[in-house]
């Protein structure tokens, strides 16, 4: 029983990483109705920017704020330059664009900062949290920040005019335009916010997985999985999904014999698919009704 409890705790610790990323995934999904395959790479690039700032002597929280602002602007610029012209192109062409963006960012980051693994600092310290060896203060801090972002997002979408306009633009673009919402800028704003959230996720994740250009590859896959499991329409669901995927993964690795590190991911994904077959909108997502 103690083994079980320990594994669940360890699962929550890794789940925090996925939850962070899943939040960024849900954000972009709310804005453009699609998964952005380059999201992880954008977050990685932001994290490198903050690392570079710190190398230049900027203190942690200063670098943190600057990086979030930079990512927000960069997200908007990417949307305006690269994806606005593709707005009328077929969706699959847009997906190809995400893959192209992925290749570009990954390769440029590799050229600037090369592929060696770098240490990344944490503001929370890395001593055991409340005497538990399984969760460090950094992981506890990360969970705290994730929950804080979740609350802020909830307030943003529920109680601000811009949040309402964004939701309207995402769910019914035509009608939103008719009531005077600039839907095109709402999409750009969504990109900016997703990039900003992604950069926070990156800076939280980097102390755990270490900083290098491919650090986000696995994390993004789990982030997608978590978001889909929790329901792509619900930020709360995404965070819960992140923790659930982390716990799943740990329990599978512990209790099913013969499952090494390599089979963890496929089995976690298979479980998610089983859940989706039963509940197609995800655990916390709203069912989408189609007009015929």
């Amino acid at each position: 029983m103690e083994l079980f409890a320990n594994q669940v705790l360890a699962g929550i610790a890794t789940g925090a990483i996925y939850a962070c990323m899943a939040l960024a995934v849900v954000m972009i999904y709310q804005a453009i109705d699609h998964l952005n395959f380059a999201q992880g790479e954008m977050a990685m690039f932001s994290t490198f920017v903050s690392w570079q700032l710190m190398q230049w002597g900027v203190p942690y929280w200063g670098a943190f704020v600057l990086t979030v602002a930079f990512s927000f602007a960069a997200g908007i610029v990417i949307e305006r330059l690269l994806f606005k012209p593709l707005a009328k192109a077929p969706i699959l062409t847009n997906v190809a664009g995400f893959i192209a963006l992925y290749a570009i960012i990954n390769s440029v980051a590799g050229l600037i900062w090369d592929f060696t693994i770098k240490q990344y600092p944490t503001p929370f310290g890395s001593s055991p949290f409340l005497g538990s060896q399984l969760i460090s203060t950094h992981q506890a801090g990360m969970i705290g920040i994730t929950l804080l972002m979740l609350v802020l997002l909830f307030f943003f979408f529920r109680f601000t005019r811009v949040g309402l306009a964004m939701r309207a633009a995402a769910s019914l673009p035509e009608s939103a335009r008719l009531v005077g919402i600039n839907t095109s800028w709402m999409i750009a704003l969504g990109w900016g916010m997703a990039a900003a959230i992604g950069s926070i996720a990156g800076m939280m994740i980097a102390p755990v997985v270490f900083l290098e250009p491919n650090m986000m590859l696995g994390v993004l896959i789990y982030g997608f999985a978590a978001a889909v499991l929790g329901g792509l329409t619900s930020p709360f669901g995404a965070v819960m999904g992140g923790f659930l995927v982390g716990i799943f993964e740990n329990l599978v690795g512990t209790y099913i014999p013969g499952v090494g590190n390599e089979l963890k991911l496929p089995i976690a994904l298979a479980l998610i698919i089983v859940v989706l077959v039963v509940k197609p909108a995800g655990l916390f997502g709203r069912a989408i009704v189609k007009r015929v």
Partner: protein
Amino acid sequence: MSAAEEVEVVTEGQAVEAVPKRAMTLGYGTSLIVLAVLILIPLFVKNFIIFQMTMLLIYALAVMALNILTGGSGQFSLGQSAFYAVGAYTSAILMEHAGMNYALTLPVAGIVCFGFGFLFGQPALRLSGVYLALATFALATAMPQLLKLGYFEHWTGGVQGLVVTKPDAPFGLPMGQDMWLYYFTLAVSIGIYLASVNLLRSRSGRAFMAIRDNEIAASAMGVDVALYKTLAFGVSAGITGVAGGLGAIAVQFVAPDGYTIQLAISLFLGMVVGGVGWLPGSIVGSAFIIFVPNIAEGISKGLSGAVFGVLLFLVIFLVPHGARQVAIIAQQLAAKLKKN
């Protein structure tokens, strides 16, 4: 707030463009010209280029298989690399362990993959869009790991993979192994291409397209949606399996790490560049995924990924509908010239 307000009403945007079935193929004359070019080129080039052209045809087959699934029936798959791997391993195991003739292993690979795809299509029925993408993605990431498993090592060779012997030209034909393999692949590809074109023109093809354009309307017209959706998966997997088998013979080697998600992403890019729903575009898309990474590497070693990305962006900016758009523009130009 009442329950009704909680539910979003979505008028569904079409995920995949509706391509009329006549627009899915090439005219008679153009087809013959392309065929003549494909037959004549190997007579004038070196062995390595012949090998590359063989791979071009093989990937074109795999891209076309995805095109039938996505452009034909409107379903999306990131798991094509898994079917490709199963086809490759089926061929390799039959050749190396059972001593079967290489040509005979291909239909077996096709049938095995058809079954596999058909079965996989069952749970996929309930999923669509991003969910289906995730499910097929899971399949693609699981496949290399499954092939490495200790239980199958006796057959699959584990991490090491299997070495396949290259066949000689039969009946004492005076040509090298590479050239024979190229013509063999060409013959298989033409056969499958013709079969696919006919499939899309048939009752089943019309059912696929009806499902792609509007699932509910299709079922109202009496199309068995579940059956045809799984059938599309099966057919697509079967063709990919044959391509995988051919690939194993051409590369003379199968190993788990040759069939990762990267292959599935490449095939997807090939489909987009070639034009979703336009079968002849598959060969253009296949050329893109084989040659453009090499070109990118040639332009800049350190930044090859970035160059590849920029080239891909250029293509989708200039022709968002892929090679099909180029073909349509060319056709209109030709018609204009005829009038004058």
